[in-house]
């Protein structure tokens, strides 16, 4: 029984990674109908930036911030950098393509992804890098017979806090309403006075920033990072986005969490090798029976 809980906690941990990355996808996708393939690479870049900060600043960090502070500092710094890079990529690779339609945008996004991935490889090298072990807190706990690390708890708490903040912003603030309105109907939203450029700026800073923070957390959790890891995470996160329903941000969050839990349970009870197949099968089945995603999307077509 304890093992089940452990798997669920593992699932929630990885699920929250998927959820946070999925949020970035979902925002861009909802507003622009663009699959931002580069988003996975924002995540990767954040992870590498965090790595660099921790490696080169390790002495400084441990003396001034302590281990946990180091993690938070890495997250914040990565977030800041990626917020900037996100806007840059949007201006350079996406904005000129909008008038051409959705499909050229996909190619451009793939191109951007290739550029980012290879830039990371050129800068940091093609081999795996690893977050320095001595900077990662390694405290194990055993609560009611369930093995769990403090790191996991912190990550879960941080992730849920971030998700909560984002949920609040999207659902309860004017900014969020602007994003949701633009996602539903771009033209009417701008006619109502919503500044499209501000919305774009917002989603391309917040999304990549979230992705970057997730990257640092992944680096601390798994330690090993590679320049291609964005691909796999991105794919799963995009799956979560669709699973939750297009343009449905809370749906993307839940989609990510559910995906993570399913993956872990699948790995534990079916087979580790087939876990991804299991996850994709579930996705396909869900879409066959609920073509608009688990939580439904929010558009309708008038004939």
């Amino acid at each position, binding site marked *: 029984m304890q093992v089940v809980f452990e798997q669920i906690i593992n699932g929630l941990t990885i699920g929250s990674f998927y959820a946070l990355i999925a949020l970035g996808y979902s925002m861009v996708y909802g507003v622009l109908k663009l699959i931002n393939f580069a988003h996975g690479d924002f995540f990767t870049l954040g992870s590498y930036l965090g790595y660099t900060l921790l490696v080169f600043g390790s002495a400084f960090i441990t003396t001034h911030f302590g281990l946990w502070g180091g993690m938070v500092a890495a997250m914040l710094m990565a977030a800041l950098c990626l917020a900037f890079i996100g806007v840059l990529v949007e201006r350079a690779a996406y904005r000129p393509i909008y008038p051409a339609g959705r499909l050229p945008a996909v190619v451009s996004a793939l191109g951007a992804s290739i550029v980012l991935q290879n830039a990371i490889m050129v800068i940091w090298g093609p081999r795996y890098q690893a977050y320095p072990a001595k900077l990662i807190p390694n405290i194990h706990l055993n609560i009611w017979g369930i093995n769990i690390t403090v790191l996991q708890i912190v990550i879960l708490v941080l992730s849920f806090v971030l998700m909560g903040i984002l949920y609040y912003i999207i659902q309860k603030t004017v900014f969020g309403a602007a994003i949701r309105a633009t996602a539903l109907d771009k033209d009417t939203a701008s006619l109502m006075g919503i500044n499209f450029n501000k919305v774009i700026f917002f989603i391309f800073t917040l999304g990549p920033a979230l992705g970057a923070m997730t990257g640092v957390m992944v680096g601390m959790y798994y330690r090993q990072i590679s320049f291609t890891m964005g691909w796999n995470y991105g794919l799963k996160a995009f799956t979560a986005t669709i699973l939750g329903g297009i343009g449905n941000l809370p749906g993307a969050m839940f989609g990510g969490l559910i995906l993570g839990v399913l993956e872990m349970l699948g790995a534990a009870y079916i087979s580790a090798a087939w876990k991804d197949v299991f996850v994709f099968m579930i996705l396909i089945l869900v879409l066959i029976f609920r*073509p608009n995603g688990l939580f439904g999307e929010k558009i309708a077509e008038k004939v």
Partner: protein
Amino acid sequence: MERVKKGFFGSQQGLLFVIVGLFVIYPFLVSNYYIDVVFFFGIYALLGLSLNIVLGEVGLFDLGHAGFYAIGAYTTAILNTKLGIPILLLLPVSAIAAGLFAYIVCSPIIHLRGDYLCIVTIGMGEIVRLALINNPFDLTGGPNGVYGIDFPSFGGPFVVDSSIEYYFLIWVIVVLSIIGLIRLQRSRIGRAWNCIREDEVAAGASGIDVRYYKLLAFVIGAALAGVAGNIYASKLMAVSPESFSFWESCMLFCIVLIGGMGSIPGILIGAAFISLFPEIFRPFAMYRMLIFGLVMILMMMFRPGGVWPRKRGGAEFVSLLSRKRKKDA
């Protein structure tokens, strides 16, 4: 005599003649390595044409096409190495296997709207690849794949086992496919496909069975990809799952978009770009792919409709092959 010659080489037919001529002479002038490069250009051309049916003609967002390619390749690999069935016979078998797979797998999901269909095709492609890696029933050889695949043989001394012979094999198949695809484009089937791409609801309201034609596109596209898989498998003599990744599907997608959706000459150019670019830019070593990505972005910025977009209503690419002449307005 002089004037007729100039006119001939100045026209589209003339250009075509020159290009075909170049293709025929090329392998006799270069080493095996460079013959193989253009062989793979041919494979990508065939794959691009196969995806074009689904993506270019019908507008279906297929990002899992490498899965059909894989089914064709592995069908050939497994049936040849385990049962000794000759490669040439396995060509139609692989096509049918891939087509059947597409039919079974796409039937329940063909009604899904564009974006959802996209993620399902991605999922399908991944499922195929992962299944191949996991070596079910010890058939697929796991991550190492299947090796020891034969050469295609037409009987007796007519075996395809050299670079130059493979070169001609793939390009003959590409040419035959192009002829068939042009005929389809100009038929009611091609028109139905394009109508579905433009407006599904209007297509249905004009009497087109949307579901049937979407499925048909997938099946034909898959079958053609299966053919490519067969030739690829026997050329490499081995297949492994890495060749059929999501990345591969993305590259095929780019071929169609960069070349021009629904445009056969465009697809050939797109295939050339995807397959030849990494070769030409080899000297740039690790910056090669970086440049590749940049070029992709720039292409979409300046030619979003593709390098050679499809032209409608006027003279199409190869009027040589069609007896029908357009009525003068």
